[in-house]
């Protein structure tokens, strides 16, 4: 950044030199791009006929990327120059502009609070109806409802993890372990003992919460990054145990043919005694999907309601105090051990519920569903949501989980890049890039303000940058 300030002086004579400067910066960017892509993009290694690796050069691709890097850098530079000039002009006739800009964020937040949340909730409740109207029939909407289920699963996981990260400030990178515990609890109990989903769901939550305490206990003393790494290690250990303990978990092959969800005991089946026959409806396989949608919606809303209530209880206030200053907490007589453990176990418990739901929805669990990437996605949903903002987490889940799904529909890209181009291959690539861009653009998340848990007389929004986070 210092390069800009030195190079761009806000005088009238700077105009031609700014362009030259921009072109020079662009050339550097293009050169860097060339360097980055030189071996790894320029040559693709493929298995040749005699099992030898052969190199295929891709000059066009690299040239295009370099040109793009050049153009992007020039534009960014010119934009920075323009902004600098505008700032200089503003400084010249100061005071007049300053006020209008101030009010904007608060207003956006207020509109979000009053209209956004009910709108979002209404959308979520009527989503299967809207989707089937848009698609023409219930069966046509299957893809969209499945996507809704996926997003809501992440909303629920995000809200669960939010208790640990957003409220208690404990950075947990192994949250997926509890998700796995919940999923395997339901999978094992239902396939070996034939227990129904409605019995297993609470069991899964309780077991996951129990694991939360077990894994939380040794890491009580750790803070910040160290805590993150240890929880990451625990997450990986649980996954590796699931892979290697073949007698119990069937190893990497996973557990299949897990019983499906029932409508409180009435199975979603064709014929006598099934859901459709009992309620006098024509049979449709979509009933089960819609039921699953509402199930996860209710589970997510329960998570939210519990979190909101807990925030008002002494334990919730202790969590937030712990996040702000652990030492002050201890001197005020808060039992930090129990406070941390409850945060861990309650968060884990919701992860367990979500896991049981995952197992009943997929009908199949394998350790591969519970890798580190999954933890990273959930954490990024929480952080991008603005940590502590429940609504922000929901929006972030839609953006981060639903956004990459859109790639499946970009069929026009096939026309540009050729028939064997599949935009879906780029899903995770774009996901990773989006994480970086979002952090650089809005490190405090999408909703960067906080609603205070308790208020005196007047409700004020708290800027996210005043809140400590993740210092463990």
């Amino acid at each position, binding site marked *: 950044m*210092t390069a800009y300030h030195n190079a761009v002086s806000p005088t009238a004579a700077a105009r031609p030199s700014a362009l030259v400067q921009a072109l020079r910066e662009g050339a550097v960017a293009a050169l*860097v791009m060339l360097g*980055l892509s*030189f*071996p*790894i*993009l320029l*040559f*693709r*290694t*493929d*298995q040749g006929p005699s099992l*030898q*690796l*052969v*190199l295929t050069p891709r000059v066009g691709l690299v040239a295009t990327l370099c040109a793009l890097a050049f153009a992007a850098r020039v534009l960014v530079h010119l934009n920075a120059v323009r902004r600098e000039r505008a700032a200089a002009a503003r400084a010249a006739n100061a005071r007049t502009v300053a006020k209008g800009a101030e009010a904007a964020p608060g207003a956006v937040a207020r509109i979000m609070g009053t209209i956004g949340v009910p709108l979002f909730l209404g959308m979520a409740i009527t989503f299967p109806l809207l989707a089937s109207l848009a698609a023409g029939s219930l069966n046509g909407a299957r893809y969209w409802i499945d996507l809704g289920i996926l997003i809501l699963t992440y909303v629920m996981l995000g809200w669960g993890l939010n208790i640990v990260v957003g409220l208690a400030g404990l*950075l947990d990178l192994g949250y997926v372990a509890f998700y796995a515990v919940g999923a395997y609890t339901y999978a094992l109990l239902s396939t070996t003992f034939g227990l129904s989903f409605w019995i297993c769901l609470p069991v899964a939550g309780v077991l996951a919460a129990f694991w939360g305490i077990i894994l939380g206990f*040794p*890491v009580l*003393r*750790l803070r*910040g*990054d*160290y805590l*993150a*790494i*240890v929880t*990451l*290690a*625990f997450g*990986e*250990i649980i996954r*590796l*145990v699931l*892979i*290697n303990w073949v007698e119990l978990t069937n190893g990497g092959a996973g557990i299949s043919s897990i019983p499906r969800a029932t409508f409180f005991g009435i199975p979603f089946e064709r014929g006598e005694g099934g859901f459709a026959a009992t309620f006098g409806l024509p049979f449709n396989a979509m009933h089960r999907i819609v039921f699953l949608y509402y199930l996860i919606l209710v589970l997510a809303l329960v998570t939210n309601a519990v979190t909101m209530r807990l925030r008002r209880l002494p334990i919730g206030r202790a969590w937030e105090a712990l996040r702000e200053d652990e*030492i002050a907490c201890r001197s005020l007589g808060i039992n930090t051990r129990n406070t941390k453990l409850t945060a861990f176990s309650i968060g884990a418990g919701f992860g367990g519920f979500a896991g049981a739901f995952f197992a009943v929805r997929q009908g199949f669990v394998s350790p591969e569903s519970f890798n*580190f*990437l999954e933890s990273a996605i959930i954490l*990024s949903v929480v*952080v991008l949501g603005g*940590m502590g903002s429940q609504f922000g987490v929901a929006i972030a889940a839609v953006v981060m989980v639903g956004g990459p799904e859109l790639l499946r529909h970009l069929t026009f890209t096939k026309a540009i890049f050729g028939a064997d181009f599949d935009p879906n*291959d*780029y899903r995770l*690539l774009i*996901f*990773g*890039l*989006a*994480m*970086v861009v979002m*952090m*650089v653009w809005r*490190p*405090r998340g999408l909703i960067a303000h906080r609603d205070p848990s308790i208020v005196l007389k007047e409700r004020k929004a708290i800027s996210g*940058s005043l809140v*400590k*986070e*993740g*210092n463990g």
Partner: protein
Amino acid sequence: MEVFVQQLINGLTLGSIYGLIAIGYTMVFGIIGMVNFAHGDVFMVSAFIALIFFLLLTTWLGVSSVAIALLIVLVLAMAMTALWGWTLERLAYRPLRGSFRLAPMISAIGVSIFLSNFVQVAQGARNKAVPPIISDVIVLFERDGYAVALSYKQIIIMAVTTVLLTAFWFVVRKTSLGRAQRACEQDRKMAALLGIDVDRTISLTFVLGAALAAVAGTMYFLYYGVVGFSDGFVPGVKAFTAAVLGGIGSLPGAVLGGLIIGLVETLWSAYFSIEYKDVAAFSILAIVLVFMPSGILGRPEVEKV
């Protein structure tokens, strides 16, 4: 006994690779207090760069001497990976300096996801295998039909590691860059007041870390002859374990930790179960962090109120 000596040799080889990666973690953590999650993936990228340069030299340019080819590959891989390290720091971490603590970490996780999928898209999801590059071995001694062998590859890896670590040690201890680096590590603000270009120093730290990761990547490619796009994560976590075990922020600690982790992994595989070798490494990480967070050679962290 024979098995033990053999595993000792294998473990030290693996350990030197971990040690080289661990230095990148430990330096970055020392200077900006951030766990560079993407470092394992930078290592993976460098292994791919080494693979491609090796193929380029041997099949296209017809370099027949393997030794010369490997030397050129090593230098080029270091240079190219250093460029990656510089770019990543510039684009993904520098804008977040001074932001709240979680931001660079999330950004690093994003970079890690990006890099592994970038390589998957650019090079395909399959593992890339080449026929063994050097297969000669020296048989040290033989008893009861079990020969303890030291392969040329292992000798090369240990020798290259030793030479480069010595050079690196010299850079950090004796040059002005190393002094600037240590100054930033102790107190960034004070260093800036005394005229040290902190941004440049941090950039160079990333460049050095990436270059050492490239050495590790080239050695990994030479040793196993197989690279895949997902090969960065597990070695990355193990190298981080090594950095923590040796005491994060301490350079000799990182190498020592790397050797210990390498030995534990191979001995565990030989005497207990190969399936649980990663569990052993991750457990060490958890145990060390919980019971001796300052590691073997690290300074204890003092908490200020």
